[in-house]
């Protein structure tokens, strides 16, 4: 777990970053094969897909939990996982926006 966190910290490329994120967030993520991804936009879309699917899963399980008996740990795990991926996706989004702004400030 700590190794994966460290790996995310010093990720050299988006692909390895996403690998790291996938290992942290655990099995709830539907793993999209990013090992061979070289296209940045493809990597980005897979991040958002992961976040969305984790959120959907969490919402579905929460609805079931509210309506009746549901395994407590399962619901909690799903919601935590959704939060993790969402946080990661937001962090990536922020980095991208900052990078874009920096680039746009570059003198031609």
């Amino acid at each position, binding site marked *: 777990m700590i190794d994966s966190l460290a790996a995310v910290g010093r990720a050299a490329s988006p692909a390895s970053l996403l690998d790291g994120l996938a290992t942290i967030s655990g099995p709830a993520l539907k793993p999209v094969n990013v090992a061979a991804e070289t296209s940045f936009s493809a990597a980005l879309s897979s991040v958002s897909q992961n976040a969305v699917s984790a*959120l959907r899963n969490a*919402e579905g399980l*929460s*609805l079931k*939990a*509210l*309506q*009746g008996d549901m395994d*407590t740990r399962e*619901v*909690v795990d799903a*919601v935590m996982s*959704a*939060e993790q991926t*969402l*946080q990661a996706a*937001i962090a990536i989004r922020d980095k991208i926006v900052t990078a874009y702004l920096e680039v746009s400030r570059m003198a031609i």
Partner: protein
Amino acid sequence: MQPVNLFALASQQARWLSVRQTAVSSNIANANTPGYGTVDVEPFQAVLDQTRVAMRATHPQHIAVGATADALSVRQVDESRPLMPSGNTVVLEQELMKSGEVRRSMEMNTAIVKAFHRMLMMTTR
């Protein structure tokens, strides 16, 4: 099936849980009252389906009350269990168990709402 708003459902369940808590408290408080029959609320699924379980009008003590006009009513439960000589049907252990269920559900409810609210706030920052 149309998509259900998570927060709306959570609010409904919270309301149902608090009415159930009132029913359980009533039972515990009246555990020694002669002639008192255990009360409870209708199951949550029935409340959601908006079906009013057919009022047993033949039961002389059937009183359907609720804070709103929806299916949330505290009604007397049909007991087939043998009564105490005093006519009291409250089993304290069962009431305490129901109380525990209410608490667990409420904790889950507030935790889920908190988490999703947090996530929502994260995205709109």
